């Protein structure tokens, strides 16, 4: 449903943008104490990765250096904890571990020396896996331009409560638009969904190699992405921007998601003029 609302917003603002002008201005930002950020992912696709980092002040360059001295564990319910090991300067922790649909996972991150305890925990249950059935390119006019749009098909299972996130990669690079869906309107249907990018000029180009990953996410993570998209990207017309609804407890920003993934690849209307590097 949110894409529909977003579309409404876009159409409404499109008519305004026509007469508007933009200018970069300087604003008076009051810096706040830095916060910890935790991004935790465990999939059925052998990814078990947590990034621990901190916020940056508004006017500073983004701080890409992570927190590398944290103690990070993930525990499958009823089993013993797996310790994740820091592998880089960017605060990324990994373990060789594959999640399973239907299982519940607990994340624990402890940052030694952090103010107020520095222990962050979260729980996520990996939903049942739903497969991405097909991926193809649709050509149609949107906002006055003909565009190539990645279109997916999948079958939502009969039981209620499924939620999905899609990520579009073009030539290996992730597109940042947040595509999410939940089954309150589509429950049990064969779903056709266009990954429409609400950008005036955006289109997939001929020869582009497109990969779409479908993640079956749990409800708290749906809420995280939904609220992040609504109010935390700095670009929305929302009257009340704010931090997304997070499932991390203990005062950190971010999310912990156990999800099942499936992905498909396609080239955009390929012919002999396209050249691809040999793999």
């Amino acid at each position, binding site marked *: *449903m949110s894409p*529909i*609302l977003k*579309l*409404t*917003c876009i*159409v409404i603002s*499109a*008519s*305004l*943008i*026509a007469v*508007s*002008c*933009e*200018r970069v*201005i300087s604003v*008076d930002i*009051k810096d*706040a104490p830095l*916060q910890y*950020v935790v991004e935790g992912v465990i999939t059925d696709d052998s990814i078990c990765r947590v990034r621990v*980092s901190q*916020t940056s002040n*508004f006017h500073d*360059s*983004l701080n*890409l250096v992570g927190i590398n001295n944290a103690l990070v564990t993930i525990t499958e319910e009823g089993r013993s904890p797996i310790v994740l090991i820091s592998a880089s300067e960017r605060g990324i922790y990994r373990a060789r571990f594959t999640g399973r649909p239907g299982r519940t996972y607990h994340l624990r991150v402890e940052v030694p020396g952090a103010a107020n305890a520095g222990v962050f925990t979260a729980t996520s249950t990996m939903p049942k896996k739903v497969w991405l059935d097909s991926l193809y390119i649709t050509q*149609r006019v*949107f*906002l*006055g*331009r003909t565009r190539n749009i990645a*279109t997916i098909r999948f079958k939502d299972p009969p039981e209620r409560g499924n939620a999905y996130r899609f990520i579009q990669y073009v030539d290996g690079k992730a597109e940042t638009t947040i595509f999410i869906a939940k089954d*309150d*309107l*589509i*429950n049990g*249907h064969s779903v*056709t969904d*266009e990954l429409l990018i609400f950008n*005036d000029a955006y289109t997939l180009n001929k020869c582009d190699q497109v990969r779409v990953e479908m993640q079956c996410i749990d409800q708290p993570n749906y*809420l995280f992405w*939904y*609220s*992040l998209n609504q109010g*935390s*990207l*700095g*670009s*929305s*017309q*929302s*009257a*009340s*921007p704010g*931090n*997304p609804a997070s499932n991390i407890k203990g005062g950190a*920003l*971010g999310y912990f998601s156990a999800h099942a993934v499936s992905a498909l690849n396609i080239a955009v209307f390929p012919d002999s003029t396209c050249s691809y590097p040999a793999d």
Partner: protein
Amino acid sequence: MRRLIFSLLLILLFSVGYAQQKFTLSGTVRSQRTGETVINASIKPVNSTEGMSSNEYGFYSITLPAGEYIIEYSAVGFETVAENVTLDQDVSKNIVLPDEIKNLDNVTVSASGKGRTITGTQMGVERLSITEVKTIPMLLGERDILKAIQLLPGIKPAGDGNSGFYVRGGSADQNLILLDEAQVYNASHLMGFFSTFNSDAIKDITVYKGGMPAQYGGRLSSVLDVKMNEGNNQNYELSGGIGLISAKLNLEGPIQKNRSSFLLSGRRTYADVFVPLAKDTALRNNKLYFYDYNAKFNYKMGEKDNIYVSGYFGRDYLKLDQQFGINWGNITGTLRWNHIFNSRLFSNTSFIYSDFDYNININNPNNDLDIYSKIRDLNLKQEFQWYAGSRHSLRFGLNSIYHKIRPGDVTSSGNASFNNFYLQDRYSWENALFVTDTWKAAPWLNVTYGARLTSFAVLGAGDFYEIDADGNITDTLTYKKGEIVKNYLNLEPRLAASFIINQTSSFKTSYVRNVQNLHLMSNSTTGAPTDKWLASTNIIKPEIADLFSVGWYKNFAENRYEFSTEAYYKKMYNQIDYRTGADVFTNDAIESQILFGIGRAYGWELFLKKKTGKATGWISYTLSKTERKINGINDGAWYNARQDRIHDVAIVVNYQLNRKWNLAANWIYYTGDAVTYPAGKYIIDNQVVFYYTKRNADRMPAYHRLDLGATWLLKNKKNFTSELAFSLFNAYGRENPYIITFRQNKDEPMRTEAVKTSLFRFVPSISYNFKFK
């Protein structure tokens, strides 16, 4: 001490006067040229402190000791008429007032409404005449009463060029907007840039920002009472106008002279309003337009009965690439019957219908979807005005409204990806009893006291929910059709007093409580047609506001100037806001998506108006503060409401240069809106996300703007007049921020920048208006 003795003497005289026999003079005041009733005309015996105003149907009743009187009838825009009356029995006298004759050598424009009286108890009221509205320069030359009232103290625009407004710290949905008594749920066209009111069809505008009379209720912050013209019952008139964005046509005339008349009025914008201005040709395929129609019919059945039928129908359409469409609109209808029982008792009975709906349609090769939502009221209002004697006049009556809200029906064709989905319809029945007595307690003291008792019954059929503090459903209760889920009973006291210092100045004070049972949920900065109306439920409690105000009023320089100042404090209870990540479109248990809290607002308003002469106009200034405290937002601490603006200034000037040219200008300034800027940033999935701390703790840059206008009277013949109107909106091209967004610099992706988007600068317009009489 001397004053006290003097006052006591006067009271004594008055009481003695009571022994004398009294009679009542009553009747209806009408315009000679059009036969329309005159609202708020003053009826006053010469050399007396007594006085009355005609009511909203032109009826007046004044009770005086037996004797000979010269009665003066006066009203804005009309010549004053004096009549000799011998009051040795009850006298009925209908009066017609001729139009004011403008002295051509020494042009005098009497632009002011006489709404603000020194002696009356009514506070916080603003009246604008259509003549005043007509000369104020507006965006794209479209005359707009909702934008005109924003130039008054205590009333603030919702945004650049926007017709939405905030009154004394209330939000946009806390204004009761009535068109011929029918509630208009969405009073704007095209995302708020134009109001639903076609000024050609409007007779009178009254705004109550405090001290609402007891016959009004249902909204916390203000009442905007708009009355449509009735239609000329003397002659046919055809008038119209062609502007940059719209064309208008208005036809009125008698059906039977002196007995009945009609009015038909229509307005339509040209296919696309902003689209032709678009640099981007791609956008030109889109459609964006609105139209509205007003119609009214009235019939005089003898001397004692009048019937009025009026209606409004308006709709907006927005279409994109043949694939996406949204349309929305209001329909209102009012049937009224005035009956004069006797010289002292006037009755009005109204049946009112109002309806707002929107429809979103998506139709692309892969999917189709239709979303429909609607709110509909059936309303009966019975009101009596009893002019009980020379010292008391009473208004009392009842009001019964049946609300039906259809929150959302989602439908789709069989082969699409979507299920049909229906949110439960919601029913409620709102009843009110009201009574007010206006009591001339002493020559120096007038008191109005009364109350409104409201009952709001939430009705089945449907499922209702119990919700815990985190918004989880703990229980579902199922009710049968017509079963009462919850009944809210509230008493709303309405008290006001005016202390008359002398003929030209007074001090007033008032207290009102208002209760609101329909709540608009909005998360956009300017309001959208898809904002959601909710009725109170078992969980959502009625919003309540207590408003205290005091004021001082002074007319000087022989009434050419008026000055007023008011201070207010408002406390609001059961205020509502969205939870983070609220999804209100597919959630039947809407209570799980919202948060509750309180609000407070206080302020000081100053207003100075020059009412007559070649140059007229006003200066208004408001100093104010508006805050909310909602459990779950801003850590439960007080924060600025978005509409919190510390300073607010408006200067409106009109200058009648000569017979042909009228010049106008207005300048406004206000403190930037309270907004939330990020306090930091971080990365989630390779994307920059902003970190927020305090809600609305930051400020947009201040808003200010100058608009210029000129009206050139081309022809002014007995049967035909025409004029050209020019305007320039935002004449010095101030880039006022519409929104401020944040993004990464294109060249240095690690660096963040703030981007100000501004809308209207140097917008010129020209329009042509004509009238055949």
